[in-house]
């Protein structure tokens, strides 16, 4: 194991990544950017097809493109980027380097995920898995697709082990001390991920793989959907929590403030673990085989996340206001103008936060039992998750990439790159505003999601969709342009930006000293995991038992594409 490079010989105050950590983190980020490029190309083409701008050249299917878009963006880009970001913050906050054993698990997990991704991509590109990223049975994809997915999940478990090992070692060496906030939140994110991926792992390993290999003939469809959505909803919190980490921990430093509270953010993360998992039925409200009581119970549990969300909103804006006032702002909203609007590390993030306000409100609509009937499976839902994952989360990831990539490569975020970053994130904001607004409205007018271009025999209802389709297409072009610009800037920062002789700045906010230490019970993970399991058992035991006991004869697999 090599020691951190210290060219100036006295860099103890500053930070340099250990060269082995750097390689591991860059490997994750690099792969995530490749997935982003593939996902963006597929996203643009499918968007232009469904909105009537283009017809696809022979041999490429709309649903095939949509599968690539969903898998690459939702599953692969996010997961790889998140691991890269969390490893970097752990190295920074837990003593300067990752432990060699953690690094080893990180690498094994990385290669498993890469191989799994390549297998899945191969199955999709050969048109043997046009089943979208939700792969609902009894549509049956090639076993290569499912085995690839299983490798990605198991690889991510090894990656999470790397997070846990570093945290456990730090705790052992710092008894009776609260862990650094970044590390605490990383552990919470991975606890959530490991608990929720058990569902999709059971679905893939025990249902889909044996069935697609022909070892068993039939599959319990409703059970498989339930396993999927047990995973599918916390999946969105797995994307969101790393963005929240950046908002809570890194942004205060970037804007020149302090972490608002060292305890409450930990409580919010615990609440997100508890109340994002036993809630998958709110994705299944419109379907049979689950009784109304259990659907309603999970709706109530779903809505509980309103509380930690409001706490987060308060803390973030309180941080902003305190910074603004410290810089001399007066009046009720004067602080707003004191924020560093020309710093892309903040600006892109702030745009994402702004999108997240209507996104949260839309989420309440989606999950609210009766109202779901109005929007379920319409483009409203697609509009919704494009302003969560594809605005709040990804715009935060853009902001992170703009300083993390040069920091890892010993380079600087130049003023020019920063300016291009402002243009890129602004373009993304405009494109996403146009596209998601159109999608929300046309969804209310009845256009279904996940559907190739169609006019339904020129039915009059479709005429009302035309204008919104046009603007959806325009938005997708702006978003694609923004993605290409982002990747170009990142490539520059990776490879060509001026080298920095100074140790890099890794922005980590400091907690306000006036606040008391976080209570140690928050670090008792066994307790929080046990509570989560308890809630899951309450929410799922009876309905799953019913699904198995009163199951219809299962379904044979069908290739319908």
């Amino acid at each position, binding site marked *: 194991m090599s020691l951190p490079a210290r060219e100036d010989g006295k860099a103890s105050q500053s930070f340099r990544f250990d060269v082995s950590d750097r390689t591991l983190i860059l490997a994750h980020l690099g792969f995530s950017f490749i997935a982003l490029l593939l996902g963006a190309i597929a996203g643009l083409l499918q968007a232009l097809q469904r909105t009537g701008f283009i017809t696809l050249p022979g041999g490429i299917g709309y649903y095939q493109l949509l599968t690539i878009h969903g898998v690459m963006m939702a599953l692969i880009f996010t997961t790889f980027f998140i691991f890269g970001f969390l490893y970097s913050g752990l190295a920074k906050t837990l003593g300067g380097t990752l432990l060699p054993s953690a690094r080893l698990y990180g690498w094994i997990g990385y290669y498993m995920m890469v191989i799994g991704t390549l297998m899945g991509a191969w199955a999709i590109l050969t048109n043997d898995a046009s089943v979208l990223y939700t792969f609902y049975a009894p549509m049956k994809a090639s076993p290569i697709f499912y085995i690839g997915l299983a490798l990605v999940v198991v690889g991510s478990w090894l990656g999470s082990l790397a997070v846990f090992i570093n945290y456990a070692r730090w705790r052992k060496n710092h008894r009776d001390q609260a862990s650094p906030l970044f590390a605490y939140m990383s552990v919470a994110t991975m606890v959530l991920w490991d608990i929720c991926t058990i569902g999709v792992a059971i679905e893939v390993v025990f249902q889909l793989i044996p069935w697609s290999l022909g070892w068993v003939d039939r599959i319990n469809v409703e059970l498989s959907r339930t396993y999927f959505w047990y995973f599918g909803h916390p999946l969105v919190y797995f994307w969101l929590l790393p963005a929240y980490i950046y908002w809570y921990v890194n942004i205060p430093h970037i804007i020149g403030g302090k972490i608002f509270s060292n305890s409450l953010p930990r409580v919010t993360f615990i609440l997100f673990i508890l109340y994002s998992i036993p809630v998958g039925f709110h994705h299944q409200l419109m379907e049979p085989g689950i009784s*109304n009581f259990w659907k309603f119970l999970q709706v109530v549990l779903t809505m509980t996340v*309103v509380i930690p969300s409001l*706490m987060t909103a308060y803390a973030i804006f309180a941080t902003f206001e305190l910074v603004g006032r410290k810089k001399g702002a007066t009046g009720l909203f004067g602080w707003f103008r004191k924020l560093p609007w020309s710093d892309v590390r903040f600006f892109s993030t702030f745009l994402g936060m702004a999108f997240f306000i209507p996104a949260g409100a839309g989420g309440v609509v989606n999950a609210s039992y009766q109202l779901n009937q109005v929007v379920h499976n319409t483009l409203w839902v697609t509009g919704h998750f494009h302003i969560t994952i594809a605005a709040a989360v990804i715009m935060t990831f853009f902001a992170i990439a703009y300083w993390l990539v040069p920091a890892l490569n010993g380079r600087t975020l130049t003023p020019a790159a920063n300016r291009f970053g402002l243009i890129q994130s602004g373009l993304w904001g405009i494109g996403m505003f146009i596209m998601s607004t159109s999608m929300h409205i046309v969804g209310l007018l009845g256009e279904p999601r996940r559907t*190739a271009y169609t006019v339904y025999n020129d039915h009059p209802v479709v005429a009302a969709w035309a204008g919104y389709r046009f603007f959806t297409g325009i938005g997708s072009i702006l978003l694609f342009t923004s993605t290409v610009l982002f990747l170009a800037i990142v490539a520059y920062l990776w490879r060509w930006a001026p080298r920095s002789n100074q140790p890099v700045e890794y922005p980590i906010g400091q907690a306000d000293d006036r606040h008391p230490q976080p209570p140690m019970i928050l670090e008792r993970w066994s307790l929080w995991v046990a509570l989560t399991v308890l809630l899951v058992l309450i929410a799922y035991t009876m309905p799953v038992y019913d699904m198995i006991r009163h199951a219809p004869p299962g379904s044979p697999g069908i290739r319908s594409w």
Partner: protein
Amino acid sequence: MSHAYMPRSEKIWLAIGGFSLFVFLVVLGILAFGMGMNPPGHMRTIAPEAVHTTSPFQEPKLVQTGPNTYKATMVAQMFSFVPNELSIPVGSTVHFELTSPDVVHGLFIPNTNVNIMVIPGHITEFTYTFHSKGDYLILCHEYCGAGHHLMMGRLLVQ
């Protein structure tokens, strides 16, 4: 969290939020359990390959069950609805019952609250009253394969 520092304004903010949430959930609960406004569902099951030979789906059709009430027994299959043309007088209440012999489908009627998931092996039921005249589009809103975007039907309310 007695250890945590929480300003008064945050307590007020959370109290307002928490109270709104509580009221909201009570409203949802009253609508659901007091007024019977529940989403589509049902616990009946059926063997997927026996759909075409099992009553009532062996002869799926719209039948009148009373003054102004109808039962629409439908099969959603790759890539059509059977039957795919329905016609009812305005003000009719239609009780839908659907199943699928193959993959997962959906039945959605834009500009109404008819929004139903059709899962093979299960029967989904939903009741809706059509108060306005019109030429309603019926479409499949769950991806079901290469012909998904062609899967449609019509409902005339006269």
